[in-house]
């Protein structure tokens, strides 16, 4: 009994030791995999923090003879971009539909109604890039999927790359800029049934202007 006691203790210690090691291995593996959950970690291209105040998604649409301009005030943008690593670069936009602002609250409310965006059911518009190609003259074609009102559509957003330079006001930071324009057929995106278009009130083509400024440490 006396001789058996230390042996049992050693076995138990070994078992505990092994179990602890297994636990630490799992813990280490979990920490190693954790960055994969962060979208920025998907791409190894340089990531940029968007300057939300100077980045906007504007739109304009015909109203009989005039043009109505508007924008989405809440747009979340994620950018990983390096002109030399286009395969690892990516853009992702998430637009809060109820942040639409055309300068006329009643029109905004109408845009949020089932006549257009139906924000009660579909509160977000998203665009996620799938590939980026250089089309020359500083223009990059960002191909991706646009999700509007729960439906996914393929879209190519041509973005003009304005360059990278030291930020004139933020020390130790560089700034990158893009501008892009695309015309969307709102009826193809199911934004409206077409009744106002048939009445000759509201056009079907929406000119969208995406303008981005983003910062990153040098």
């Amino acid at each position, binding site marked *: 009994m006396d001789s058996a006691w230390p042996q049992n203790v050693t076995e138990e210690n070994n078992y505990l030791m092994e179990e602890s090691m297994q636990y630490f291995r799992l813990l280490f593996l979990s920490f190693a995999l954790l960055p994969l959950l962060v979208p920025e970690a998907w791409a190894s291209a340089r990531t940029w923090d968007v300057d939300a105040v100077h980045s906007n998604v504007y739109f304009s649409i015909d109203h009989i003879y005039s043009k109505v301009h508007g924008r989405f005030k809440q747009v979340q943008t994620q950018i990983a971009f390096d002109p030399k690593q286009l395969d690892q670069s990516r853009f992702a936009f998430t637009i809060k539909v109820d942040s639409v602002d055309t300068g006329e*609250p*009643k029109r*905004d*409310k*109408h845009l*949020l*109604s*089932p*006549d257009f965006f*139906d*924000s*009660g*059911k579909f509160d977000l518009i998203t665009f996620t890039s799938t590939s980026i190609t250089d089309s020359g003259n500083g223009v990059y074609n960002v191909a991706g999927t646009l999700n509007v009102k729960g439906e996914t559509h393929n879209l190519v957003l041509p973005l003009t790359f304005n360059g990278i330079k030291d930020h004139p006001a933020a020390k130790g930071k560089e700034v990158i800029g893009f501008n892009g324009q695309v015309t969307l057929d709102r009826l193809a995106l199911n934004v409206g049934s077409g*009744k*106002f278009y048939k009445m000759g*009130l509201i056009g079907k083509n929406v000119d969208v202007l995406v303008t981005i400024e983003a910062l990153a440490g040098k």
Partner: protein
Amino acid sequence: MQQTDIHRSRSKKSIGKVPILGGISLFAAATLSIPFIYPTETLWYKVGLDKIMLQAGQFAGLLTLILLVLQVLLALRPQFLERAFAGATLMRWHRANGVLIAASAISHVFLVLAPEGLANLPVGWRYWPEMLGAVTLCSLLITVALSRYRTPLKLNYQRWRTVHRPLGYLIVLLLTFHVLFVSESFAAGLPRIGLLAVIILLFFGAALAWIRRGRKTSPKKTTI
């Protein structure tokens, strides 16, 4: 001299029920015609049942405004009304009219909001005129409920009256601002000027009545 006295006493007698009711009908008809003579742009984007509902909603809203103006008149009981109709009748109408106001206000809210979708309510600072309308409706429903159920709620008459009067005038003010800023029909021109004129006259009449009542109830000065 004698002739003028007779003339004065006749003029004090009564304006007559027909001219009063005719005047009220004209005022109501003129107000209710506003959405049709000065249609809002919102109607451009409504078709079929939605358009009918929105027009009915605007109609109900203006009916609420008319009834509220009449409600203040019934509460003030000006001499020309008291002479044409008995004071007790005016108070009976005042009570019944309160319920009508609540009913038309509720139907206005439902008819105006339904075509836009109940999931798309105008909530937030940018919709402040609509939010003001919601505050007005709540104040109105509280006032009507407290008046209707004053006895079962065992509310002291004097205390209730102290709250009821200012709340009533506050509702008129809130509703005026709501109408002036929510409806494009009242954005400019005759409807805007007309509404402002009616409300100013109403408050001027209320101030006069308040001063007169103050004089009547204040103790007479006696000289020794």
